[in-house]
């Protein structure tokens, strides 16, 4: 077992009478990615929210280990990096102010937001409310990587990105996996061409 890995078994989740997840299992280790695919409504986003600790599964187990130590849901929430369509930022603040705020919460280095903004080509002085959908997606990537997480949970990670945006975010993902300690779970990839894929999980089948 690597020092950083994620295992989940028998994860189920209902919303009222609707069974969105039913006994889903999978695992991924450091340096690898798990692709989660499936039709609309098959539970991909719900699975990622459960893995992030944002939703408690009705049954099943989720075990995330970092440096050999198992993390509970609260620790997973603080440590994961997540890119998801429902992650929004404060429209009254600039991009730089949003990231500075979250960098303080995440205890990231103060210069980290500027480094990532330059990498993805986002202006820090733009109001978050004035960003296009593609720029918001780049901002989500920056936000997710602020604190150098080991586990990346990516839900529709390349949505709304233009070709340069998709190129740079794929580079960031590859660097994250190539570093050896990072792992990723990717749901709804626009393209399945992601290297270091350990397994593919088809939901709703």
């Amino acid at each position, binding site marked *: 077992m690597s020092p950083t890995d994620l295992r989940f078994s028998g994860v189920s989740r209902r919303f009222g009478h609707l069974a969105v997840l039913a006994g889903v299992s999978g695992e991924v280790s450091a340096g690898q990615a798990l692709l989660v695919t499936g039709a609309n409504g098959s539970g991909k986003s719900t699975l990622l929210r459960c893995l*992030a*600790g*944002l*939703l*408690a599964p009705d049954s099943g187990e989720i075990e995330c280990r970092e440096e050999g130590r198992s993390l509970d*849901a*609260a620790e997973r*929430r*603080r440590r*994961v990096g*997540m890119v*998801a369509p*429902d*992650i*929004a*930022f*404060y*429209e*009254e*603040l600039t991009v730089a*102010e949003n990231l500075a*705020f*979250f960098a*303080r*919460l*995440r*205890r990231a280095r103060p210069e980290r937001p500027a480094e990532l903004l330059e990498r993805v080509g986002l202006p820090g002085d733009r109001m978050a409310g004035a960003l296009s959908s593609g720029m918001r997606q780049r901002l989500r990537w920056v*936000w997710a990587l602020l604190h150098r997480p080991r586990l990346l949970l990516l839900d529709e990670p390349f949505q709304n990105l233009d070709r340069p945006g998709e190129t740079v975010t794929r580079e960031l993902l590859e660097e994250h996996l190539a570093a050896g300690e990072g792992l990723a779970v990717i749901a709804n990839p626009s393209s399945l061409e992601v290297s270091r894929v350990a397994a593919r999980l088809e939901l709703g089948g």
Partner: protein
Amino acid sequence: MWRLASNWAAEALAVFAKDWRCEFRTRYALNTLALFAFTTLVVVSASLGPLGTSAARGASVLPVLLWLILLFAGAAGLPRSFVHEEETHTATALRLAATPSALFCGKLAYGLSLVWALELLVAPLFLAMVSLAVRSPGLFVLVLAAGGFGLAAGSTLIAAIIAQAQGRSTLFAVLAFPVLLPLLILVVELTRNAVAGAPAGMALHQLLLYDGTVTIFGLMLFPVVWNP
């Protein structure tokens, strides 16, 4: 240990600063609180000003009206701290990034500063407009401070509970009644004592105990409410 406490305090301070930065850019809560408070203040002073009631009745009734003004003005603006996070979908990012207790304290500090600013505006105007003399100004200020703390703490906790629910306005009123009623009873009694120049008595101890209890209860309950 010291480093953990320092990080926690930095988180709470970041939340407080962020809320005020957003508030200065929108002025939503400030305008709502000030407009509500000023409107009710004018109505009260016009209806029950120096010509509208006897001094004895005024000393008994006017403290009630003062705290009703503060309560309803606070209810108009304080719940927004958490409700706005849910409505604009920034709550998910906060759930992933913030320590719950630090987030609660940062929001509480923001609400408290709003309430104290409201009291700073309303209380002197109220006293002047209804010509109410306060014989124990020190007790009066203490009651405003401690009562404002209780109002902020109770409202922050209720706001966190209702933020994810439907029918928030109704739910706030329903939840606020049992939580804030003891506070209102105590601050009205203490304000009457301050007006009359009477000693605070046990009521002040009870008010401070209320403040501590609501705060501790909020810190314990908030992580459960915030993270389903």
